[in-house]
């Protein structure tokens, strides 16, 4: 029964496969005759650029006109310019929020988070932190005099630090302090605070993360500024310039040693070196302690001398032109003649 089922299954499968496969192409009699006569080469169309007579000619498409130099310059200008419609929101009046982003460069949630932090800072510190967010390559318009503007907008109310922050380019950030603070916080200190914040932000890769790190560090620096104003002592590390902090620390001796010699070799090498030093030390000590004794032989006296008659060499050092090599031959009065 099983064999019958298997045969019927194979038959049905073969029939099904035959129905699914396309039929193979067949030869026309005329084509076969032409191929045999050598008048036609199969696949010749693939080897040449000839267009088959029955196909419609391909129309050559004209290249699309690219942007002109003027258009490119305008586009460039547009990308660096802050659209006019946002200028008022940025610069016309004292902002009501600590995070100023009329261009909506931050997503609502990002904006909310950053603003929450700045609000928290304002509640905790006597110096408010206002962050103006601009695009990466945007330029502050020439007619906007930022220092004057800060003076004008922030002369009243709580003291404030105003930061122009360029999203994705924290190194372009600028800080301005309200008039109350500029009298007490020196320019270098402001610069240090800004640079410190920039360095912190550059530890992050994402633009929003950079903004977060920047504002946190700036908040810390404002705290120390606050302490400075109140006359409280400020640790020296805070006063250290960022250039010094940011300067790459040269690798220490241990790191260099690690690089030069992996730690797994330290023990065998130390043992080897110790053994060598000990061997050298022992050898030196033995040599120092060594005493050389000669066997004693009876020697008959000569020339009437009771103790000695060993006549060694004589050498002259009267003339540099007569080196020892020329004096090797010891002859009577040799040196006098030399």
């Amino acid at each position: 029964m099983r064999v019958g089922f298997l045969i019927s299954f194979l038959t049905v499968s073969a029939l099904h496969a035959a129905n699914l496969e396309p039929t193979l192409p067949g030869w026309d009699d005329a084509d076969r005759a032409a191929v045999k006569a050598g008048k036609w080469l199969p696949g010749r169309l693939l080897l040449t650029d000839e267009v088959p007579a029955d196909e419609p000619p391909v129309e050559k498409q004209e290249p699309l006109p690219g942007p002109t130099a003027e258009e490119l310059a305008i586009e460039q200008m547009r990308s660096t310019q802050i659209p006019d419609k946002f200028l008022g929101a940025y610069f016309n009046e004292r902002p009501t929020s600590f995070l100023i982003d009329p261009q909506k460069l931050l997503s609502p949630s990002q904006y909310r988070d950053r603003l929450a932090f700045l609000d928290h800072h304002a509640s905790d510190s006597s110096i408010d932190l206002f962050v103006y967010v601009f695009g990466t390559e945007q330029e502050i318009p020439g007619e906007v005099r930022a220092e004057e503007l800060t003076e004008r907008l922030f002369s009243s109310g709580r003291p404030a630090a105003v930061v122009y922050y360029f999203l994705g380019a924290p190194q372009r950030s600028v800080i301005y302090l309200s008039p109350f603070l500029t009298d007490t916080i020196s320019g270098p200190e402001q610069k240090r605070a800004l640079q410190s914040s920039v360095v912190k932000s550059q530890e992050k890769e994402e633009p929003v993360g950079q903004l977060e790190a920047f504002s946190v560090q700036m908040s810390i620096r404002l705290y120390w500024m606050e302490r400075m104003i109140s006359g409280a002592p400020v640790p020296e590390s805070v006063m250290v310039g960022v250039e010094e902090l940011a300067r790459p620390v040269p690798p220490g001796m241990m790191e260099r040693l690690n690089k030069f010699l992996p730690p797994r070799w330290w023990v065998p090498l130390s043992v080897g070196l110790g053994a060598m030093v000990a061997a050298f030390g022992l050898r030196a000590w033995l040599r120092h302690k060594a005493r050389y004794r000669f066997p004693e032989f009876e020697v008959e006296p000569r020339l009437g001398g009771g103790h000695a008659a060993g006549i060694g060499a004589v050498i002259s050092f009267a003339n540099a032109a007569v080196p020892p090599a020329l004096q090797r031959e010891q002859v009577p009065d040799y040196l006098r003649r030399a």
Partner: protein
Amino acid sequence: MKCPRCVQRIHRAAGGCPHCGFTLADADVVFGAEDVKLRTLTDAAGLMRREEHRRVESAMLRFNRQFPQLFVAVHTGSFKGVSNLRQFGFWLLNRAVFEDLPVERLNEAGILIAIDADAKAAGMSFGYALDPFLEEDDTFQCLSRAHAYWLEGRHADGLVKAIEQLASILKKRCGQARRDPERFERKVVRPPQVEAQVQKIRGSRKLAKREEPQDREVSP
């Protein structure tokens, strides 16, 4: 072994030089027949400063410590001629009484470096104990080592170098002597006398002649 006057080879145990007849008595005529008391480092010519003096002395002490049987002495002076330098070395080692040496170190075990300040020459002499171990060429090497320093007037430096070279050579000789003492002994042992050998041979022949007639008597 050479004569200090004519620098000709002399045989072992020669009572006087077979070429020029030189003996210690001749040197006594020139330098005096009395024993002289002096220190192992005597800078009679005043060639060294005090600090240099100390340096040479410490080199000498080092040598004496390494070779408990031997000692080095240095004498600078004016000996009026190079030929006299050899004779002076020979004479001084036989006539000197070194005050700063222990009694057990005899002059036989001494090595004297003499510097003639006027003639600008230096020589080396040594006692009988060193006869088997030190050769003229060894002393030449020691003096050659110092030559460059002495040319520049750095007498102390030259002396220190010479003493160091001497120590180096003697250390080597000491090792060789420990391994093969006969080789060094052969250099100094007096060769068997020819006359004694001849007498021995003759004596044995005479004895044989006397015994021959007795044998004849026994035989029929």
